[in-house]
């Protein structure tokens, strides 16, 4: 009898607790490196809101967006998901995202606690589709061993300049770090560009329409802009300045043999840097942990080269969390989104040192976390703080189609099939035709 009573009691408590923990929020993100930090946020969140649990799913970048779209159609999309500037306009114009403004007003959530400008990126036609969770800038990652072998000091990379005519001191540094099989570097007259053993610089060539980690940091200090502002409808890929910068980048390989060819890079992306066959690689702050913690050689970080206008300029990009209109638990979803954008969660993320949170004080924690591991990441943060040091990601409708046109056009230039000046005007016309 006693046993039965205990059993009933247990059953009752189980039932009661399941009843109160009824809500489960489905949350998607694409970066496996970030998942542990957000898992921690979710655990802390559930401790504060015992009736809500968050189930986190990580999907690879390529499947992520297709999975979301088909999820919207079939009604199986997650309640909350990490969103990207390249994708949210399409979702917003198809009424798939919850406008957060009324909720923000109701709960009096401050939107001015983030790095300046970040919060504005998520507003379209007066509606807000996300609160910023992190930001990123780009910088130079270098193989410190190769630098030392070439007799160069990290400070040699601190004040490089670039121009599209001769590449400036940036191109000289690249040449110095490029070595052929007989040991001549790229500055030597005996340098054999057909027998390169080690490249000074590696570009990923990809990212057709925005060039965040490939060419945007070259073109912006030339005074060039992608288009006529947020949600722009007129693009400038036909501008001769743009063609000049692209041709310079293509010629680094085609003419000078100082960087690996498009063919060599395409399949492995940053593989040559990881394999210790390329000395410098310009990429985003989200790669810091990956490069500095996991590679068998020491990786240092240097600021971008200065462009023709005397400035270093990086694309300013960031992510946010969106609520799907089809969510059955919108109120709980909003609580989670609010938590993700809060100081508390961003501090948790900051301490993990994987990305830079959107709130400056939390970013300081990330910088400290990296410092404790012996990595100086200040140049990424300085880039974000410098006046005029950043420009926005070209947020646009028709992003996938613009990207498709630009990818195939730029690939022709990088392969040496066409001159930039000859094909970019036509590509630009095709891009602009999408907005008519």
């Amino acid at each position, binding site marked *: 009898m006693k046993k039965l009573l205990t059993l009933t009691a247990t059953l009752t408590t189980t039932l009661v607790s399941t009843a109160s923990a009824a809500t489960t929020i489905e949350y998607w993100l694409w970066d496996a490196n970030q998942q542990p930090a957000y898992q921690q946020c979710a655990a802390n969140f559930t401790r504060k809101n015992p009736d809500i649990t968050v189930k986190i799913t990580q999907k690879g970048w390529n499947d992520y967006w297709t999975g979301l*779209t088909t999820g919207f159609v079939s009604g199986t999309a997650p309640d909350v998901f990490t969103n990207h500037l390249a994708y949210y306009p399409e979702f917003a114009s198809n*009424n798939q995202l919850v406008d957060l403004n009324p909720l923000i007003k109701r709960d009096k959530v401050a939107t001015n606690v983030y790095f300046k400008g970040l919060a504005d990126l998520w507003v379209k036609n007066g509606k807000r589709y996300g609160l910023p969770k992190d930001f990123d800038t780009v910088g130079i990652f270098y193989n410190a061993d190769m630098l030392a072998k070439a007799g160069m000091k990290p400070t040699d990379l601190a004040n490089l300049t670039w121009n599209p005519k001769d590449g400036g001191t940036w191109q000289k540094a690249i040449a110095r770090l490029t070595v052929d099989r007989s040991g001549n570097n790229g500055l030597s007259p005996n340098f054999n560009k057909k027998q390169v053993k080690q490249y000074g610089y590696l570009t990923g060539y990809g990212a057709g329409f925005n060039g965040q980690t490939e060419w945007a940091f070259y073109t912006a200090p030339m005074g060039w802009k992608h288009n006529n502002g947020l949600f722009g409808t007129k693009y400038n890929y036909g501008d001769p300045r743009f063609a000049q910068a692209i041709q310079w980048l293509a010629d680094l390989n085609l003419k000078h043999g100082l960087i690996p060819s498009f063919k*060599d890079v395409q399949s*492995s992306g940053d*593989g040559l840097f990881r394999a210790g066959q390329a000395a410098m690689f310009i990429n985003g702050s989200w790669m810091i942990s990956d490069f500095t913690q996991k590679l068998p050689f020491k990786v240092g970080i240097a600021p971008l080269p200065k462009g023709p206008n005397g400035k270093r300029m990086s694309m300013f990009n960031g992510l946010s969390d969106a609520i799907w209109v089809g969510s059955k638990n919108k109120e709980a979803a909003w609580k989670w989104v609010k938590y993700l954008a809060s100081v508390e969660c961003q501090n948790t993320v900051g301490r993990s040192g994987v990305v830079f949170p959107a709130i400056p004080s939390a970013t300081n924690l990330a910088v400290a976390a990296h410092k404790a591991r012996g990595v100086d990441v200040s140049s990424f943060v300085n880039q974000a703080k410098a006046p005029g040091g950043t420009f926005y990601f070209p947020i646009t409708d028709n992003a996938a*189609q613009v990207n498709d046109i630009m990818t195939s056009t730029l690939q022709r230039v990088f392969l040496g099939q066409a001159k930039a000046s000859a094909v970019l005007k036509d590509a630009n016309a095709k891009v602009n035709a999408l907005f008519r």
Partner: protein
Amino acid sequence: MSTGIDAPPLRTTAPPRRFPSQAVTGYLFILPALIGFAVFYLYPALRGVQISFTDWNLLSEPSTVGMANYNEVIRDPKFWSALGITVKYVLWNIPVQTLLALGLAVAMDRLVKSMFVKGLLILPYLLSSVVVAMIFLWLLDPFLGIVNQWLDGTPLGKQSFFTSAEQAIPTIAFVNVWKHMGFNALLFYAGLQAIPRTVYEAASIDGASELTTFRRITLPLLRPVTVFVLVTSLIGSFQIFDTVAVTTQGGPADATRVLVYYIYQNAFSFFRMGYATAMSMVLFVILVVFTLLQMRLLRANESDLE
């Protein structure tokens, strides 16, 4: 009008006697397959026809646009270039695959007794195409792949494989030859087993050489299997997608943007579902025409074995 030369002999076979109860049992047996066919093939195909007349971005309500999508298909240079690239792929894939499969089948028939070796041949077919594509992507990588480490010392030198505009399509075709060759070889092998040994004995008594026997007896008697292999692999080959999606994503510079990849891009990247379905319909018609043409040219409904 038949000229009378190639006309098949008229054959009248009496219809088998059917008992209603047997017929019911028969239908019951195929019912699960029929339901599957209706749910997973027939209904989607009919919906596809309907969607192809609409402008639909998946997320909003579709709006009917009549023939607009089909008109655009005809005027879209990217569609024609994708079709051209697909044909190029088919021309690399089918002959190599079929000849190798046939050769393997004959070798199996003549030389190999071991079931284990025969089993090995079909292994690549059992792997998922994504896995196969990933394996070759790494094997053939210009810098990190082992194949290029080997080639580096030879007069050939390093090759770009997936990343060169000229080599990408042949490379993708080769990957799929590797994957499908064993399965087709097994089909040919089964066909070879069905040829009565007495025919070969008669040929050898008449003093026919090995080559003549193959040309005059084996090949003609294999024709039904050959038709099956060609028709199925041609249909599959025209629908090449997965290897492209994993290895080249249509690049470099559009060199591998095959038709189904372009359809996929329109449907799931550009959210143009109506246009994508219209192109699928055109591909469907092309495939029906090709299949009928092949069946007719190869006289699929006849056998020489009588």
